[in-house]
């Protein structure tokens, strides 16, 4: 079947099998490999992308369901060459280690901050609770999101990580 999906602002028309999953459409058809596949059962969230502005687990969405709709992936987070504050936060606060869960975590975090610019740590944990990270123990992911929120608000970032030059 033929579908047209707008991904990160660009329209793509492709012939696909009706059973093709959105994650495979993004990764294999469009070669946008920043979104990852991790479990098949909607538990891990490595595949989280936005569908019409809402985070979804793209391993359990058919590509056909995205026909005529807008998808945003990690490749669409940075704007005009500038990293999104969430991306900056993950790098600043060591919010990633292997980086496999990171794109999905950041997509959910971006959505959270769009809807709640001043989240508490508990609200960040709740927002990310449908996703798994095997490396970080979540601590620095939570800090990364709070850091991004503070940056956007123009506040001094909460509990800022030491600058490298201070640590040296």
């Amino acid at each position, binding site marked *: 079947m033929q579908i047209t999906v707008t991904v990160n602002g660009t329209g793509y028309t492709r012939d696909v099998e009706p*059973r093709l999953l959105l994650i495979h459409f993004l990764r294999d058809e469009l070669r946008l*490999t920043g*979104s990852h596949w991790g479990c098949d059962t909607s538990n891990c969230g490595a595949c989280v992308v936005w569908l019409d502005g809402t985070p979804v687990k793209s391993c359990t969405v058919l590509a056909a369901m995205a026909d005529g709709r807008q998808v945003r992936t990690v490749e669409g987070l940075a704007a005009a060459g500038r990293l999104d504050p969430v*991306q900056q936060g993950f790098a600043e606060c060591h919010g990633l280690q292997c*980086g*496999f869960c*990171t794109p999905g975590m950041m997509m959910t975090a971006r959505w959270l901050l769009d809807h709640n610019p001043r989240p508490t740590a508990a609200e960040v944990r709740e927002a990310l609770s449908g996703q798994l990270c095997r490396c970080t123990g979540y601590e620095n992911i939570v800090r990364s999101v709070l850091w991004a929120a503070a940056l956007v608000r123009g506040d001094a970032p909460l509990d800022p*990580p030491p600058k*490298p030059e201070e640590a040296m």
Partner: protein
Amino acid sequence: MNSAYGRLPRKEDARLVRGLGTFTDDIALPGMLHGAILRSPLAHARICSLDTTAAEAHPRVRAVITGATLAERQLAWMPTLSRDVQAVLATDKVRFQGQEVAFVVAEDGYAARDALELIDVEYEPLPVVADATRALDPDAPVIRDDLAGQRDNHIFDWSAGDQAATDAVFAAADVIVSQDMLYPRSHPAPLETCGIVADLDPVSGKLTLWTTSQAPHAHRTMYALLAGLPEHKIRIISPDIGGGFGNKVPLYPGYLCAVVGSMLTGQPVKWVEDRSENLMSTAFARDYHMHGEIAATRDGRILGLRARVLADHGAFNGSAQPTKFPAGFFHIFTGSYDLQAACCEVTGVYTNKAPGGVAYSCSFRIAEGVYLVERMVDLLAAELGLDPAGLRMRNLIRPEQFPYTCPTGWEYDSGDYPRALQLALDMAGYDALRREQAEKRARGEHMGIGLSCFTEGVGAGPRKHMDILGLGMADGADLRVHPTGTAVLGISCQTQGQGHETTFAQLVAEELGLSPADVEVVHGDTDRTPFGLGTYGSRSTPVSGAAAVVAARKVRERARIVAAAMLEAAPEDLEWASGRWQVRGDPEQGRTIAEIAMAAHSGLDLPAGVDGHLDAGTVYNPPNLTYPYGAYICVVDLDPGTGEVTVRRFVAVDDCGVRINPMIVEGQVHGGLADGVGMALMQAITYDTQGNCLAGSFMDYLLPTSVECPSWELGETVTPCPHHPVGAKGVGESATVGSPPAVVNAVMDALRPFGVRHADMPLTPANVWSAMQGRPLRTDLAD
């Protein structure tokens, strides 16, 4: 003064936060085909017939590989890391649920999966051994009838320590406490599953493998030995790896099948397992049925420790550890305490469960040893009516005893254990917590406080004692310094998220007076890096990091000779200060590495012994393991109505010697603490009596999320390693090893009013509630 060390943001993150990492499944080659594996639905069965006709007729299928196909090439069986053999594709029987039976190569992944449905296998079910405690029963079915002379399910008996001395200590003791406990089967479940892209160039004969390997060089040698391919024609590329934790150390049947698929079709073949395949067939961890006994004086002096272990190794002995240590380093099980004597015996058995045995950040089974001793010390404290913190403090090895040789022969290098425990107690506010607990108990509320003092031995190994399949556990480093003074370091270890591109750049930069930004770290490509055994057992910094430093110091010494020629001074009159070679007593006269590097490539008349260039390489063979340690305190709240346990606080004091990048060290500790909460409360690979795996997806194998984890409270002490060139120790597994007993001890502490003495992990609400009723669950086996 370590100017390049510190909390440097990671080089890796620039690509990873943009979604521009390259993981194995991101590789796409022209003409690439896709593989899928047909797996056994039964745990033990004879294969009566296998018909692939319909699958081969599928229009998009290019090849179907069976055990018979492989047998023609002598590839149906492959050696394991424990000198057993494992079926690549089953030829005679299937021996665990999920075992590999056939491999389909098709034009896309969906078609490959479709074709699996078209393969017709007829099985004759056989009696199943799912219960390790029954594996040696006289009437147990023999699982490994493929092995000549194998008449039962026994694999090995192994022991350590002085049994007579231990028996004497026990005979003289006032108190002996014993307990059976299971460290249940767990699975590291990296978020990226295992996979490979195999590309055999039919013209050059070069086999290139992009694969999820924690040990690319060791894998290359194993492929050469296994498939008879010349080793120089094999190139292993480990791109970005989405977590490993030990799961990506072994070779798996799917890898071999992809290689054969590429041989048969002449095209690249990708195989990436799905989550169920990962959980049901790749390297598991633990599965140790342990009996512990601890002996002490009435006033709380611990005298001795004994352990008997039944080790469930599954259907093939694929346990991954130094070859001479079939139970890994379990026998470091006396932990952080100064005992008079100890001994242990381990018996390994086959069962109809998935193969593997050492994975999941256990430091070669130190996780099991630490769990045993930390539970036994808590049980002893309860028996004697002593506070578990005080009992530990009294029995810890004292700082002046280092280097300390433990009763089973390990030589601990350095430590100040009482200081770490005291810091943890202070950070937790231990006395106030005990008061709060007493007040709550009086009100009928239940909280628990659990401690764990762990010692690890990591960084295998001295290669005289430690090898894997004959490959000594040393690691190489190659350091090239370009004329303009930037450097490229090639290393043999393999990051899976540990940030080697950053930490190793800091190590070299510090030695050469460079910025870490000026040092590029190359890894994960066997054609571009020196040989070494890879990353697992927390060995990167202890072994490979030491190699990098030794290579950098060789460069520095070479630079000294060149600088001397530049400054018209004698090399011995120069001193290394402020990141450059300068004339002693005349600091104005000095040269940086960049200046020296350009001169070393120039027409400068160089003294004897210097050929030009500054490049250097080395192989580091560690003189001993490094012994990181720590003191952990966990505080839990228990809902007696549901049995639900909430981890309220977790204080972790770690000492891993000198910290090169404290940010990365803390991140590794955070991750390990989450592992500990998961293992203690949530995760287990359980089987039913028919050998069906009951944890084959993340619906059933529960991993901790952000809401099960508290905000970790970290502390540190720094006791440098005396034999590592910069005083560093490994740390990657410390928290995974050290935290489970702290959580379990906390839950058992909360359950004391209910008369509960012990319950096995995972302490799920159902298990805790059952324990409160006096019948804790068996967590390895379900009816």
